[in-house]
């Protein structure tokens, strides 16, 4: 039996096994799931190398599974993040109901994602894509005790529309090019906008919805925020990358096979969709009061960057997108874990209700700090590299000057919510309500710290990520992708030496840390947050000194026109109107038997009268 089939089988059986372990002993559910995925990852990384291929026949179709460097790149994200998320999950999910359900669906989701990237034919792709979709749907609604109608269903409807759009495209590829293999379709130019424009458009729609591109992003924030955080780590970190995976595949093959003029509009439109996604995600993120929602919107914005990067179609841009895909998975995974830890320990992530957790959860805070710096794109952490690549790609190679400003606006505004996240949860006044909060257990901290370390190392040695990314790009058709271990160079020859920067910052940090803080440590008096000077007076215990509500009200007022574009409402109205329309239609079934009889007679008469038109 093929090793890949065994791996998938392990996951499938593991999913059921976890379910049964849960009904047997709830304590071991999480550990079982973790071990299963760990073993899978171990087997996968040791046994399967890039270039592996497996052909077989099922249901009368020639199917092909295999791994290119490109898909292997995404396997790193999927399996790496899944293992960490499951390790985290053991304690995070402890004591919750329906654990078997949760972990079973979790493993199925991992199976789906793995299947998507190993598929080299469209049928398997769709097959696994759908498994991934519904398994994740089950997880999205896991927490939704209320409002099942709006939250989970929205995700599912959008996903389904996307999946079916993709399916339509697949069907047309089959019709027009007579192939179901992805490589063959690429070779035949199936993704070209010049020939059958609806094929790539439907494909992009399918992948784009998964990647939460404007205007189909509305499912993402509630879905991310409502799922259990250990799953959102995967959801936002890895599953949304499946959309990126697809867009990268489709788009690259397109612009590598046609001259740039032909795809100017396509590129521009996709780029702008990404840009607007980034802006919308950002500005909605910064008005959230729930940390999970904030992160959810932030994810949407980050995905927007990735789309922008892919849309450039240049080497640097695609590299930026691939790099961002990984680094986003890393820091956003860590942040969702942080949010989960806070939720687990403090009971809520509503920033208007908790604050000042820094002393209670120091490790969590450090992870949050590092990840947020990476998220904001501030050097010397990994996030900056992605930003740099993206801007340089847009400015130097793609000449998309207004778009770069839009992206820049979004990433500047990202400082606001980055700060808001840290401030809202960890800084600010320490209130009595949070006194009971303890640091999260070690199994939750360890994966977070691993991710934080990755984000840090990537800041100095981005080449560690560039190497597989460059291989991946070569696998989808780029030639001679250049990269350096720790410095960035654009086509104009301007470089940024990251290693130097990191070292400098580290040196300055040591020096200033020693001289500025350690030196006078004995003279420093630490006080509580109630001990502050308000116009020279010490505040009383009962005085409310928390500033959390309407944090960025001035910005909100300034950017009021941007907030008026509420896609959410548009979709909701559409749904409502459609349902009203449907409700009108079903009145056909009046409930009166005589009316039904009348329908039959009318139908008969119509057939009789139009018989010459209908039949011949």
């Amino acid at each position, binding site marked *: 039996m093929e090793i890949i089939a065994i791996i998938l089988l392990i996951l499938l059986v593991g999913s059921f096994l976890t379910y049964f372990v849960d009904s047997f002993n709830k304590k071991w559910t999480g550990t079982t799931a973790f071990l299963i995925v760990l073993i899978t990852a171990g087997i996968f990384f040791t046994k399967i190398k890039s270039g592996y291929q497996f052909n077989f026949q099922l249901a009368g179709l020639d199917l092909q599974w295999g791994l290119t460097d490109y898909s292997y790149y995404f396997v790193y994200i999927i399996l790496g993040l899944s293992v960490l998320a499951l390790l985290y999950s053991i304690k995070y999910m402890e004591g919750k109901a329906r654990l078997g359900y949760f972990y079973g669906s979790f493993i199925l989701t991992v199976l789906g994602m793995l299947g998507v990237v190993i598929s080299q034919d469209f049928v398997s792709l769709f097959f696994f894509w759908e498994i991934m979709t519904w398994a994740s749907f089950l997880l999205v609604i896991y927490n939704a005790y209320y409002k099942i109608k709006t939250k989970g269903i929205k995700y599912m409807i959008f996903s389904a529309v996307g999946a079916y759009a993709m399916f339509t495209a697949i069907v047309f590829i089959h019709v027009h090019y007579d192939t179901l293999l992805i490589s063959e379709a690429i070779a035949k130019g199936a993704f070209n906008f010049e020939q059958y424009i609806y094929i790539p458009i439907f494909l992009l729609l399918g992948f784009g919805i998964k990647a939460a591109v404007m205007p189909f992003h509305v499912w993402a924030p509630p879905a991310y925020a409502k799922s259990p955080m250990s799953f959102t780590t995967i959801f936002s970190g890895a599953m949304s990358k499946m959309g990126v995976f697809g867009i990268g595949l489709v788009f690259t093959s397109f612009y590598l096979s046609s001259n740039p003029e032909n795809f100017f509009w396509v590129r521009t439109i996709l780029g702008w969709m990404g840009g607007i996604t980034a802006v919308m995600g950002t500005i909605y993120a910064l008005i959230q009061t729930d940390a999970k929602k904030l992160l959810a919107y932030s994810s949407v914005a980050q995905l927007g960057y990735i789309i922008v990067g892919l849309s450039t179609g240049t080497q640097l841009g695609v590299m930026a997108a691939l790099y961002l895909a990984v680094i986003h998975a890393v820091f956003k995974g860590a942040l969702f874990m942080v949010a989960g830890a806070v939720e687990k320990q403090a009971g809520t992530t509503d920033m208007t209700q908790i604050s000042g957790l820094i002393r209670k959860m120091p490790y969590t805070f450090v992870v949050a700090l590092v990840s947020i710096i990476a998220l904001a794109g501030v050097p010397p952490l990994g996030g900056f590299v992605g930003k740099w690549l993206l801007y340089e790609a847009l400015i130097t190679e793609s000449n998309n000057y207004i778009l770069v400003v839009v992206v820049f606006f979004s990433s500047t505004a990202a400082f606001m919510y980055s700060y808001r996240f840290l401030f809202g949860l960890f800084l600010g006044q320490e209130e009595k309500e949070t006194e009971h909060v303890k640091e999260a257990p070690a199994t939750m901290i360890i994966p977070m710290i691993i991710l934080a370390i990755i984000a840090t190392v990537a800041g100095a040695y981005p080449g560690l990520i560039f190497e597989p990314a460059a291989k991946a790009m070569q696998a989808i058709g780029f030639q001679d992708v250049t990269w350096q271990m720790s410095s960035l160079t654009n086509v104009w020859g301007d470089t940024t030496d990251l290693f130097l920067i990191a070292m400098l910052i580290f040196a300055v940090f040591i020096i200033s840390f020693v001289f500025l803080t350690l030196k006078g440590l004995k003279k420093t008096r630490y006080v509580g947050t109630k001990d502050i000077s308000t116009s020279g007076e010490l505040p009383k215990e009962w005085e409310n000194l928390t500033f959390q509500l309407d944090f960025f009200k001035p910005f909100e007022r300034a950017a009021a026109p941007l907030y008026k574009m509420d896609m959410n409402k548009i979709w909701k109205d559409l749904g409502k109107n459609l349902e009203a329309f449907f409700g009108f239609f*079903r*009145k056909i*079934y009046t409930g*009166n038997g*005589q009316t039904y*009889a*009348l329908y039959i*007679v009318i139908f008969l008469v119509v057939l009789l009268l139009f018989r010459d038109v209908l039949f011949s």
Partner: protein
Amino acid sequence: MTEFQILFEQHKDLITIAVYGTSIALIVIGLYAVLMKKHLIKIVIGLSIMDAGIHLLFVAIGYISGGTAPIFSRGNENAGARMVDPVPQALVLTAIVIGFAITALALSLIIRLYKHHHTANIDQLNSLKW
């Protein structure tokens, strides 16, 4: 040629109109009753009338000018060529029984409905709808 056959050949159009017309009229009347009458029993009667019309039509198309009943009674053993088509008659026999079954069931249902609703008006029987 029998006497009736002569008569039939003479007035063929008229008889055709009479026979087919009656059958089709029955069908149409039955349809009308089913579609317009509000009383359940009347609707069932309409259904029966429609069935009757169809059965009549079926038997009528089996008629062959100058044919006799398809029974090889004594002294008539070799009259096969002069007989009317027996198949429609046999089939109509079956159809009638089926019609009876449907009517019986319909009536029983009406009894049930009347027990529950205290009415036999079809317009008031629409608690199941949409």
